[in-house]
């Protein structure tokens, strides 16, 4: 029974993805969407990949990481080197970007074994800055002035990378491995006592998360003509973090929705140059004040449609309590 259900939802999701893809592709081919809208779509898709990959690290595994821009930049630069310096195919560059970032994830996963909470946060922030400063000092990739990159990211590439990212992370999360990660988030000591190799899963979360951030990096660098170390500072990490938290920590669909909404808000605010950041920051503050648990809390969007068998204890989390 369970098995059939899982199979079914798996294929329903894939079919839904194909339909979305086809519609947008049709609009693009029919020139019904101009370049600006296409670019906005690509920005959204890249942000979704980033949000979902960080969601695995923070939302699922509970590792407070604020250096995601580090993985993004490693992916972006590695991919750019593959296409621009070595003249190899774009597809390969995405893969290499992912792998390079995953290796970095492995390395930064190691301090995570000893550090917790805010200390881990600052260490990962430091990691992001170290990556940025290193790039700044490598002349091969242009140092501070950056590196020109051809525009190769197209809608199909971006879209299917996003679908794969979501599928992999959803499938990982909804398995015993994902539950192991969640148990670390919930209570590391108990997880350990239940025989979960917490070291392994923490590092694994970093590696998988970093891999997809790296892929996003490849898409990113091939979409914006130029990459510079300056674009990958901690503010970029914060932007990604904001998607995850605003969507609801632990909710994948929440991260996706937040990434879409905030990308649109940000594009929209370009028209209000004097006040854009003031408005943006107000939006942030107000959202957090009125929905501190994020847009979806810890729930997934699907649970709003399903009644009955809810695994989230529905009404119980109306208000945070004093206890």
């Amino acid at each position, binding site marked *: 029974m369970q098995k059939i259900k899982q199979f079914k939802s798996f294929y329903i999701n894939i079919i839904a993805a194909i339909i979305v893809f086809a519609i947008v592709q049709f609009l693009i081919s029919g020139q019904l969407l101009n370049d600006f809208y296409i670019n906005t779509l690509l920005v959204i898709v890249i942000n979704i990949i980033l949000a979902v990959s960080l969601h695995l690290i923070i939302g699922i595994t509970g590792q407070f990481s604020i250096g995601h821009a580090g993985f993004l930049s490693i992916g972006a630069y590695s991919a750019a080197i593959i296409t621009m310096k070595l003249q190899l195919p774009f597809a390969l560059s995405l893969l290499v970007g992912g792998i390079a970032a995953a290796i970095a994830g492995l390395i930064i996963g190691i301090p995570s074994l000893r550090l917790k909470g805010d200390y881990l946060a600052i260490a990962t922030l430091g990691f992001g800055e170290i990556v940025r400063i290193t790039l700044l000092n490598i002349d091969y990739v242009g140092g501070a002035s950056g590196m020109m990159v051809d525009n190769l990211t197209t809608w199909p590439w971006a879209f299917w990378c996003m679908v794969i990212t979501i599928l992999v992370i959803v499938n990982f999360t909804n398995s015993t491995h994902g539950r192991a990660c969640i148990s670390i988030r919930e209570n590391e000591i*108990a997880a*350990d006592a239940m025989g979960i190799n917490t070291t392994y899963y923490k590092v694994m979360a970093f590696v998988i998360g970093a891999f997809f951030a790296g892929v996003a990096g490849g898409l990113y660098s091939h979409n914006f003509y130029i990459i510079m170390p300056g674009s990958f500072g901690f503010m970029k990490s914060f932007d990604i973090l904001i998607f995850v938290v605003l969507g609801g920590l632990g909710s994948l669909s929440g991260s996706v929705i937040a990434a879409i909404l905030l990308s649109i808000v940000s594009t929209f605010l370009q028209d209000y140059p004097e006040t854009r950041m003031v408005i943006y920051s107000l939006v942030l503050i107000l959202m957090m004040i009125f929905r501190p648990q994020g847009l979806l809390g810890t729930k997934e969007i699907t649970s709003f449609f399903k009644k009955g*068998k809810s695994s989230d204890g529905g009404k119980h989390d109306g208000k945070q309590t004093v206890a």
Partner: protein
Amino acid sequence: MMENKLLLKVENAGIQFGGLKAVSNTNVEIKKGELIGLIGPNGAGKTTFFNLLTGVYAPTEGNILLEGKRLNGLPPYKITRKGISRTFQNIRLFNELSVLDNVKVAYHTNSKHSILSSIFRLPPHFTGEREMEEKAIDFLKIFNLDGFLYEKAKNLPYGQQRRLEIARALATQPKLLLLDEPAAGMNPNETEELMNLISFIREKFDLTVLLIEHDMQLVMGVCERIYVLDHGQLIAEGSPSEIRNNPKVIEAYLGEEVS
């Protein structure tokens, strides 16, 4: 005979925090299938002793042997896989996970499907997950928790949380089960139910149980043998009636008369 096989042997084990010898020089032997009590005043080092057994702390002296194999210095998850599982004095459930998932996590060590099979949704993933679910539900049935499978753990009433913790510990399929004050915060009536439950699972799963408890009714009622710890040292060992009348224990722990 199976029954008399030595399961756990603790030789001169101890641990020091800074200057404080929280546990020192303890020698404990537990045979397969026994139900043992560990009592002692507050701060005697009982929980710390559990922490030594489960690898939360590595002993600074002595040895801990499970079925003759040394456990010293192993990380907790490895010790769990070798067959020691526990509950905590202050409940440590996975609060945001459902009751069912709490138990599934504990069964994780026994699952065989790899990360790749889960990511690609290969057949082993489905068989593995199904087996886990069935097993987990079986455990929950024993504890009468199968009515709350999809409730978040944190939303359970206290008594049920305690039982869920025991169910979860059982799901790792341990040889030795350590219970740290399982009856704390329960009224006498609930305590009695718990006593029966502990006896029942011991029989059913062929378990060895070591439990810490301050409720003498429970300890004297179910334990076959009792160790008494005071100031980090074992001061007595024996059957409930021996312990009840041991002057040292009375002085340090029980007080004048026991009801």
